[in-house]
């Protein structure tokens, strides 16, 4: 039995919408964007857990919540620490897990050493006015790792070698704009890894890269996972990419997980109508496709997270919509073999 | 008979730091009812090529050589007035990448759709609106979008409006520059279906520019693969996808992750060249697994390897 490194229960994040003056005067109730609306999942130690969904489905917010970059509106996040955090054995490490809500502010820094994030945008995620050296040195300085410049330089050289930016001397003095997209993403990974984390949230790490380097970065991430014993929460909109790297996958729609299964199972036997639509929409480099129309069974577009439809939130677009869907929200149900789905059809 | 003939087209950007050869000696043609896919990664010059075909290259870029012949008339040497009146939108129109900003925010969709009709044809406003309504229905939108403003539409709807606008004068060729890049995958599939419908129902010639080879496979009859400002492989879709010849095309196809297979992915090592001073010889040679001495010295000519399948590589 593998350990669960991360347990998330009923996680919610609502953003208040600023009310206009007329709305305040009309005593309208404050509205919220329900970015993440009751998400539960767990991540096993050493696996790659994928969260797949379209823009605005809440997958990125979930990633931010798991890394404690933002605070949840409700719900529980528990993380199983390995080193420094575990040693401080008091009221906020219960049963071997750190509850994010109970973690005092001064220990958040310790959490940062274990839970890291790789960002999507290779251009915006590196400070344009800092050299690669100072970008990578920053985490070390903040956490007081390395006694002098020489020691820190060794660490930086090591991590640059690890992400295959070699020879490191050639890169440390460059500015981000002097690197290609793929190289920047490696720096991004290096920064996440330099503190030696266990859990890494990868937020669409390849979506802004050219196809020819995507595979290389994915391979690098897989190699690092093995050599460093990492666990990934991999966030992507691209099922084909997920297919290459993920063990288990969750599909999110409008702030909720609608289906979760092993990757292979999800691709081959999707249950939720939305998942089916997503899979059928993925284009393939097969020229015979040009003669046939792709059947994408769903219509319309994702509604705004500020106006979530009642009942099943997918019902306005669902081809199999039933009366119950309009009234009640379907619970998430295990249909066997760890295959969870939230749909009244099952 | 070919509708569009591009010969030795060169588009350079004259920057303070040097000349960027964004499109360098590119030739291809498009026949009636045919969809040409132009594939290339960022910086390959594919978007510049798209703008070049409309003669809309933003400064400091300039067309410095070659011909673009559309139904027998060369638009490179044409004067601006004739080009505007007789070619743009009437013969070649364009669907832009950033559909979010491509519509004028202060006018209704209807006004913007009608605009080209009014300026290019001698039609009454009522008739123009009727045609706009028809076109809007064709791209799968409700007629009432005509009365709405761009900011009231979703991304997918805006892209449909753009497509309707590009088709409104029934041009001979439509250039679609990354028309689905900003869209989600489900919407992308819907838009691709729309393109297929247009191609089939209207027998429309389309130049489809994208970085995503999968999308090209979904629609294109012919494919041109661009690398560092040059076309390195050009031919029938079946040939190019099934028997890619150029090492770059091969590498590119092998690097695409697929949903239904777990075949190991490969990639192309290295980074694309700086177009201010591209490598001597074949521009791909620093990243090529089959590099030979001749590749470092001389640029490979483009060569027919059979069945109108052209490749620029010393291997053939």
């Amino acid at each position, binding site marked *: 039995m593998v350990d669960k490194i991360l347990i998330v229960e009923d996680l919610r994040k609502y953003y208040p919408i600023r009310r206009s003056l007329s709305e305040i005067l009309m005593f309208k109730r404050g509205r919220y964007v329900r970015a993440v609306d009751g998400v539960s999942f767990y991540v096993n130690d050493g696996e790659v857990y994928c969260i797949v969904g379209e823009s605005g489905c809440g997958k990125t917010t979930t990633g931010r919540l798991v890394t404690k970059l933002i605070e949840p509106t409700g719900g529980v996040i528990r993380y199983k620490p390995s080193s420094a955090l575990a040693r401080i054995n008091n009221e906020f490490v219960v049963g071997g897990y750190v509850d994010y809500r109970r973690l005092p502010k001064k220990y958040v820094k310790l959490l940062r050493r274990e839970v890291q994030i790789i960002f999507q945008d290779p251009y915006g995620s590196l400070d344009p006015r800092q050299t690669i050296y100072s970008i990578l040195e920053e985490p070390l300085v903040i956490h007081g790792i390395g006694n002098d410049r020489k020691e820190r330089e060794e660490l930086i050289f090591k991590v640059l070698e690890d992400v295959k930016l070699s020879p490191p001397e050639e890169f440390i003095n460059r500015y981000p704009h002097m690197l290609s997209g793929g190289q920047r993403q490696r720096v991004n990974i290096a920064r996440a890894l330099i503190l030696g984390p266990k859990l890494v949230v990868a937020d669409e790490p390849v979506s802004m890269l050219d196809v020819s380097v995507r595979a290389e970065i994915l391979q690098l991430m897989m190699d690092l996972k093995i050599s460093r014993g990492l666990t990934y929460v991999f966030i992507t909109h691209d099922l084909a990419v997920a297919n290459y790297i993920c063990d288990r996958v969750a599909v999110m729609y409008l702030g909720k997980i609608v289906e979760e299964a092993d990757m292979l199972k999800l691709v081959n036997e999707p249950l939720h109508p939305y998942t089916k639509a997503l899979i059928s929409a993925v284009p393939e480099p097969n020229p015979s496709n040009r003669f046939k129309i792709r059947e994408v069974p769903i219509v319309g577009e994702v509604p705004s997270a500020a106006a979530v439809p009642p009942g099943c939130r997918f019902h306005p677009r669902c081809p199999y919509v039933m009366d119950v869907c309009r009234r009640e929200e379907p619970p998430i149900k295990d249909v066997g073999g760890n295959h969870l789905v939230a749909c009244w059809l099952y | 008979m070919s509708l569009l003939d591009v010969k030795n087209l060169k588009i350079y950007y004259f920057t303070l730091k040097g000349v960027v050869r964004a499109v360098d000696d590119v030739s291809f043609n498009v026949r009636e009812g045919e969809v040409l896919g132009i594939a290339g990664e960022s910086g390959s010059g594919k978007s510049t090529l798209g703008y070049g075909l409309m003669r809309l290259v933003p400064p400091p870029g300039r067309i410095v050589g070659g011909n673009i012949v559309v139904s027998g008339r060369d638009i490179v040497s044409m004067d601006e007035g004739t080009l505007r009146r007789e070619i743009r939108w009437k013969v070649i129109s364009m669907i832009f990448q950033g559909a979010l900003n491509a519509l004028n925010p202060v*006018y209704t969709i209807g006004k913007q759709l009608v605009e080209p009709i009014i*300026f290019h044809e001698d039609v009454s406003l009522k008739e123009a609106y009727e045609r706009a309504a028809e076109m809007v229905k064709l791209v799968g939108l409700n007629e009432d979008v005509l009365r709405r403003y761009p900011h009231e539409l979703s991304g997918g709807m805006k892209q449909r409006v753009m497509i309707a606008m590009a088709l409104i004068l029934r041009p001979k060729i439509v250039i679609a520059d990354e028309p689905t890049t900003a869209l989600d995958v489900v919407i992308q599939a819907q838009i691709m279906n729309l393109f297929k419908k247009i191609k089939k129902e209207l027998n429309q010639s389309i130049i489809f520019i994208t970085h995503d080879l999968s999308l090209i496979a979904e629609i294109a009859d012919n494919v041109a693969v661009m690398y560092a400002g040059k076309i390195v492989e050009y031919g029938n879709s079946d040939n190019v996808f099934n028997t890619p010849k150029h090492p770059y095309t091969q590498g590119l196809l092998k690097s695409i992750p697929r949903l239904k297979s777990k075949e190991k992915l490969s990639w192309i090592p290295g980074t694309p060249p700086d177009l201010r001073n591209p490598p001597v010889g074949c521009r791909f040679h620093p990243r090529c697994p089959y590099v030979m001495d001749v590749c470092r010295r001389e640029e490979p000519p483009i060569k027919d390897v059979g069945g109108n399948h052209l490749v620029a590589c010393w291997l053939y």
Partner: protein
Amino acid sequence: MIAVLYGVLILTGVIIGVTGLSDIVLYNIVDERLRIIKQQLAIKIKDPEQLNRAVEELKQELIRAYDLDKPWYARIPRIIYQIMVLDLGTSRSTLSFSGSNKVADIILERIPNTVLMVTTAVLISSLVGLVVGLWSATKVGSLLDRFTSLISAISYSLPTWWFGMVVILVFAYELRLFPSGGMTTPGLTITDPITRFLDLLWHLFLPVLTLFVALVGSWIYVTRSIVISITKEDFIVVGRAKGLPERVIRNRYLLRNSAPPILTNMILGLAGSITGAILTEAIFNWPGMGSLYYNAILSADINMILALTYIYTLVYVVARFILEVLYVVLDPRVRY
């Protein structure tokens, strides 16, 4: 917006209070009223000692009535109330044309004159600025463009009132083409409206020229940068691709989309110019609020200065308010 107005009012009140100005003002009012009362009483009470006692009693009463025995912060609500109802006191140095010495009367009389001069100048300069700015924005980097940016730099750096002095020196002293100041020719008794109007125009020319030169540069600059930022938008390229004539691109795409920010600037410019024309009015002796302000300072007429500062602020705040309303009308994106 309303909050801003209140904020300004409270700020003014605090400043007036904390600097001791309100004491001076209120004592002025008290003294003024006492003087009148003393005259009236003097008729009834003949005994000077008794008179003085009565006056002193009245004075204490008035001091209490005006809260002068309380610290300044207790008086702020009153000051604000007075300002809001335009109970601005009386002027020491100036009379209105109709002979009133009430500050409110004097100011109300002067407002049209200032508005006449400033709006004329703002209208002309914004029109010219619009045309030239648009023109140079479509030809960025050209000789003309560089020339216009030089012009706008000069105009920005130009002290308006100094330029007014130079204009008087050249046109009134050297060339003797225009009058050096005032609004009408003194002693002009012809009541023929056309002659009067021409006379007014003749007097208006130099101050308007001065303001025009000072304003036009920033107009060109602002228009140019707004239009340039819109030139970079995608829909302009789309417009060109559609094969629309340049004229249509310019009018329907560039100008129409630039209109909201340009209008914003126009209204703020108008409000700003009204306050900015204080010195120009003084130089040209134009009988508006500005020269009133100037004279009030020269003669240390506190009530007048206070009232005018307030009015100028009010003009500005009201302009901002109009602007917010107008923006909603012009830009479909802010209509909810």
